[in-house]
């Protein structure tokens, strides 16, 4: 089948009545890596959560489609089964539910009830993915994210991605709070999943992770819109010139006074 395509068109989103996204347009195809960068508070995480269907975010205009299917008409779990994945910035701790049990339930949700994933097959695949991410196998039997360090939580998100094999994955600040070794391990995991069947959207504040996962496109979001798109060089410019540059040069109309 043709590679996946996520199309976001003129998206407007409000949180508790306050507009956050104000006409954002972006399109991601299988095999591509897109990076969305921007200062804090410009709507990056809102974009990620809206794609996944978080109940707190109200879409007030525009559309999101996956392979032409209207994602906004689907519930979160149906979006996930359609091939969407969001690696969360702050994954929930789920007490009493082991990582292994949770993942098996998630895999079975994608299969016919009469044909659940075989335990041995599942265990092997889980062990393999854990090895890629240097996760101790014992984590499979720990409660999901409970008592995990920041780095362990982020690795666990990528572990889930490796097992669930999404067609479009959104990684929300997957590098935040990680030391350089952890960033490298997480990036390795993401790299291991790259294929023409997977489109990646990496949301990040820093350029650092892009040294490990080379983006094809970089988009700068400011005040709820994409204000500039370009190739990987844009991330480097941003790194050397900082976000002040955007404020001063790209959106003078939005930001009246210089910092």
């Amino acid at each position, binding site marked *: 089948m043709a590679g996946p395509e996520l199309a976001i068109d003129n998206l407007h989103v409000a949180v508790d009545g306050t507009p956050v996204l104000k006409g954002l347009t972006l399109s991601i195809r299988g095999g591509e890596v897109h990076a969305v960068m921007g200062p804090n508070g410009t709507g990056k995480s809102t974009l990620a959560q809206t794609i996944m*269907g978080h109940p707190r975010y109200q879409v007030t205009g525009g559309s999101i489609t996956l392979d032409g299917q209207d994602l906004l008409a689907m519930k979160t779990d149906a979006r996930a089964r359609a091939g969407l994945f969001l690696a969360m910035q702050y*994954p929930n701790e789920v007490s009493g539910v082991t990582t292994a049990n949770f993942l098996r339930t998630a895999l079975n949700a994608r299969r016919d009830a009469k044909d659940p994933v075989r335990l041995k097959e599942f265990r092997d695949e889980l062990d393999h993915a854990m090895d890629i991410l240097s996760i101790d196998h014992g984590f499979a039997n720990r409660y999901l994210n409970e008592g995990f360090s920041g780095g362990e939580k982020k690795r666990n998100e990528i572990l889930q991605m490796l097992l669930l094999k999404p067609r479009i994955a959104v990684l929300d600040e997957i590098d935040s709070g990680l030391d350089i070794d952890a960033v490298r391990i997480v990036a390795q995991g993401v790299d291991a999943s790259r294929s023409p069947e997977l489109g990646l959207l990496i949301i990040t504040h820093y350029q650092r992770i892009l040294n490990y996962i080379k983006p094809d496109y970089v988009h700068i979001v400011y005040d709820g819109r994409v204000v500039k798109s370009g190739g990987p060089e844009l991330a480097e410019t941003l790194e050397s010139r900082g976000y002040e540059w955007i404020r001063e040069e790209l959106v003078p109309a939005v930001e009246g006074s210089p910092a």
Partner: protein
Amino acid sequence: MSTPELLTLPDEPTVLADRRRAARDLYDALPVPTRQRTPLKARRLEAIPYREPAAADLDEVPAALRSAPDSAGHVVLSNGHVVVCQLSEAARQSGVRLLSLAQAAHQDAALVSEHLGSLVAVDTDRYTAANAAFWRDGVLLVVPQGIAVAEPITIVHWVGAAAAGVFPRTLIVARDDASVAVVETYLGDPTDSHRVLVSATTEVIAGPGSHVSVSALQQLPPGAEAFLRRRGRAQHDARLDWATAEFGAALSVAGHHTDLAESGARTTSYTVTFGSAAQHFDYDAEVVHIGPHTTSDMRARGVMSGRSRSIFTGLSEIRKGARRTDARQKEETLMLSPDARADAIPSLLIDDNDVFAAHAASAGPIDELAVYYLASRGIPRADAIDLLVRGFLGPVVERIALPAVQNRIWQAIDAKLQEERGRGTL
């Protein structure tokens, strides 16, 4: 209102017959009890004829319950009558005694009259008095000094369609350094909704150095109005472990009470509750530290759905002189419905200084962010809530030492969750 006939068992020793008569007088004298959060009068319990069916009926008990190959001993009571009483040869040879209480009453009148009613006071309320006056049969278990019974003793209380009043009694006597696990289940046909009054009493004497574990699973039929009283006394260095689960009945006023009577005695108490529809559970878990260096750990977790209602009253009492004791309790409730209600009332009564005591209680709805997180991985809402419910109850279930009891509780949780799905409430 139906007043049952005073029952006397054939060959009942005078002392027991006298007690029965006294209990009957108390039953007549005591009013319907007032419980702060359980309006008993409104339930019109007096309209239920308090009559045990006259004859034993084994046929009514599902075949699968009649034997228990993995048990050291197995007793089945059908509507209050003992219909099966088996004890393994190994247990018999080591001197363990497991017999019908009616039979024990005349075979071993001294022992029965010494211990029966020694812990659960007849005048606790009208329904304990009813049990003491109208009991027809029950179970006596005696484990001799130093004997460890490797497999559990299982007791099934079957409440069938013919029953109107069921009043079984269980008496467990563990001598010095004995060890035994007893599993009592209260069962009935889940499609049988006729009203039936069940008042059961279990007394446990845990001798010095003994280890007794008592599990009680309440899965009574939906028309049952139950009063389940359990009380144990742990002597020097004895250990008494309770695992109780409340799943069935329309009303269950239940609880367990432990006296840590002498130094070094310990108790653990794990309770799991799952209420649905209009079920009403009123549970008291109490521990009294009398001896020094005694410890207690009480944990309860409950899930409440529909318009169900639960009250869990935990009491840890530390008497003067019970120094160096350690008493902990924690009660948590997960609410699946805005129409359900749960009250957890933990309390500490402390009359000595040199002690450690802690209590905590909480109740809250399902964590919608966790549901969203699970949904973001493709898990539908009902399955997500199912996982969260199991995850919530798991930590208490897994503290129960007996795998067989854990399994039964998980099966009961499965059945409850299945029921909730059928109702579309997940």
